[in-house]
């Protein structure tokens, strides 16, 4: 595309806020559809599947934060307040579309069918953890569910998603990649690299920014001076939309359209979901140090789960008895799975040296042998391997 040829003869600057992007919303908080709003096609079964995944995520987060506070778990990250975005986007995808998420998107995994046992095995890093106990809690991954294993460095997954989607395009798959990140991660160089490359190379990737107001303690007002993240995509030459991230119908509809653009036209798209991180950044963070309760309460009143419930009730697809039954069934499931996961052994000692390369080189084999001899001398000092118990 050529830069425009139009010339002017007075030095008029274009203002940084020249492009103000409006927010797409479908549902009012009381569950009514805003008159004239474009509504996604969503049948009862899928709507309830979305709702159950949102509630599951909320309950899982509550229970696991409690477990962390009790010292049973080293670390946890909640997605409270953002469930409409993290579940809704997955509901708009084909199951074979790749998801490359950040770390607060357990809702998408729950929607795709990651079981409560699978969550717990990762959180407790036991012998059944797909990641073999190598990463901190919440670094999930699933090959079967097309969910790329989470990586701690921020925003690295964004250009990777562009590359992954390029490979899908070349392979002729009718699929796309969706990468999720926060508005803080959108400050990293990786973000700019990814968008520019995707636009230039015409890649079927959807960039989903969860603008939840805070990057740990840094408010978005100190993160960027622009009108959020959405206008940047336009600057890179791609389509962009801002949506109400607490409105599940807006999320589903916008993502369905984004997917169509990506898969059918090889057009990358950016979706900025406006939401709020109701909980702390992580179990190591205390938001009372940087924001007030009034602000949180304002957003609590926009609870995405409650909004969807109100809509479901109006659709007559849901009632209070089902609601009660849902919560009552999830809580014990989580607790029992947690107990089982905690009781399982650690990964075998070999997991220290496997998967560094396709096969452990001789130097690593030698290092493991030296370690074994040492553990045999002091078994009581190494309870995780118990001087041989974890040797598989």
């Amino acid at each position, binding site marked *: 595309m050529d830069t425009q040829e139009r010339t002017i003869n007075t030095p008029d600057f274009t203002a940084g806020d020249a492009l103000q992007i409006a927010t797409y919303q479908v549902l009012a908080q009381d569950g009514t559809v805003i008159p004239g709003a474009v509504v996604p096609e969503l049948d009862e079964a899928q709507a309830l599947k979305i709702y159950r995944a949102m509630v599951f995520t909320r309950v899982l987060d509550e229970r696991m934060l409690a477990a962390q506070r009790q010292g049973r778990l080293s670390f946890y990250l909640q997605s409270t307040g953002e469930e409409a975005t993290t579940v809704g986007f997955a509901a708009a995808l084909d199951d074979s579309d*790749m998801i*490359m998420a950040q770390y607060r998107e357990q809702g998408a995994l729950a929607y795709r069918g990651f079981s409560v046992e699978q969550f717990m095995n990762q959180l407790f890093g036991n012998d059944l*953890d*797909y*990641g*073999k106990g*190598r*990463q901190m809690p919440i*670094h999930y*991954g*699933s*090959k079967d569910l097309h969910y*790329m*294993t989470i*990586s701690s*460095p921020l925003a*690295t997954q*964004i*250009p*990777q*998603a*562009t*590359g*992954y*989607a*390029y*490979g*899908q395009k*070349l*392979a002729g798959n009718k699929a796309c*990649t969706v990468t999720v990140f926060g508005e803080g991660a959108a400050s990293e*160089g*990786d973000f*700019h*690299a*990814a968008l*520019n*490359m995707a636009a*230039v*190379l015409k890649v079927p990737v959807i960039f989903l920014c969860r603008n939840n107001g805070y990057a740990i303690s840094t408010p978005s007002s100190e993160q960027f001076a622009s009108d959020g993240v959405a206008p940047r995509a336009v600057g890179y030459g791609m389509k962009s939309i801002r949506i109400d991230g607490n409105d599940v119908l807006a999320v589903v509809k916008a993502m369905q359209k984004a997917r169509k653009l990506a898969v059918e036209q090889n057009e990358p798209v950016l979706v900025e979901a406006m939401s709020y991180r109701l909980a702390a950044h992580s179990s190591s963070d205390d938001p009372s140090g940087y924001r007030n309760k009034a602000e949180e309460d304002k957003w609590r009143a926009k609870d995405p789960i409650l909004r969807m419930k109100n809509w479901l009730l109006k659709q007559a697809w849901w009632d209070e008895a089902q609601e009660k039954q849902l919560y009552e069934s999830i809580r014990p499931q989580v607790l029992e799975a947690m107990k089982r996961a905690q009781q399982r052994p650690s990964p075998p000692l070999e*997991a220290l040296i*496997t*998967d*560094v*390369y*396709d096969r452990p*080189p*001789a*130097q690593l084999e030698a290092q493991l042998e030296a370690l074994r001899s040492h553990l045999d001398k002091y078994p009581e000092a190494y309870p995780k391997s118990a001087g041989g118990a974890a040797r598989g």
Partner: protein
Amino acid sequence: MANMNLLQAINNALDIAMASNDKVICFGEDVGVFGGVFRATSHLQEKYGRDRCFNTPLVEQGIIGFANGLAAQGSVPVAEIQFADYIFPAFDQIVNEAAKFRYRSGNLFNVGGLTIRTPYGGGIAGGLYHSQSPEAYFAHTPGLKIVVPRNPHQAKGLLLASIRDPNPVLFFEPKRIYRASVGEVPEEDYELPLGQAEILQEGEDISLLAWGAQMETVEKAAAMAQKEGISCEVIDLRTIVPWDIETVTRSVMKTGRLIVSHEAPLTGGFAGEIAATIQERCFLYLESPIARVTGLDTPFPLVLEKEYMPDHLKIFEAIKQSVNF
């Protein structure tokens, strides 16, 4: 056999890799129509199309981030970083991502198909930012393989092996001898093994170890020493990680002396790692301290480049000192 320079051998290897596997994709800055600033990717776009050989925007972290995702998808990316000096914007994508992809996912996902090619090294009047040898930074990160060829024949065989190796490989190309190094190269498809050093010249008195463009310099020093009656065993390490401890150990047990030479600065250079390992393995066989002949602990200079370089005279002096210790 055909006569090729090092660049032609690399181009030929890429051509064969792309012809034999349609998942192989080459990209980087100026890699497309232009064929790369050194012409390593010449004619590949004509032959294999814009989808498989293309220019990227000027963004190293993007190139390697993109390559990581592409490799995770199952493609075989061969990403070019125009100069090794400019690999650092991609450092995070290499050491935190490419190197750890398989490990952190418990082998659910990997980027084993990835190869990163990049020209390295001095002797080209390139100054600070066109001369560096950054291999040691990456050698400290488990999960990467690092390969450096010394001539056209080696370059073709090692590059084909790197592209087909199921691990991410950093392939450092000695740009000083890109065109100067010419030799017979088989036209057919062949691979040379990664992780194996090669003894170029047998000797009795001292072992000389180097890699890449430094091999020429070491061989010149060995020839000078020969005239003084000193018999040098000359070894090309070829793969920095994982390096061939056994071959070097056997050689030093025979000769009792070792000099390691590289262009990169002394402190934290890979010669230090080799020296530590070899003194552990060969302590009772050593007749003199293991010596390192390297660049200075300064940025790479421009005008005084010749003085900076670990040239054949510096190596020759180190050989005499070691033998007369």
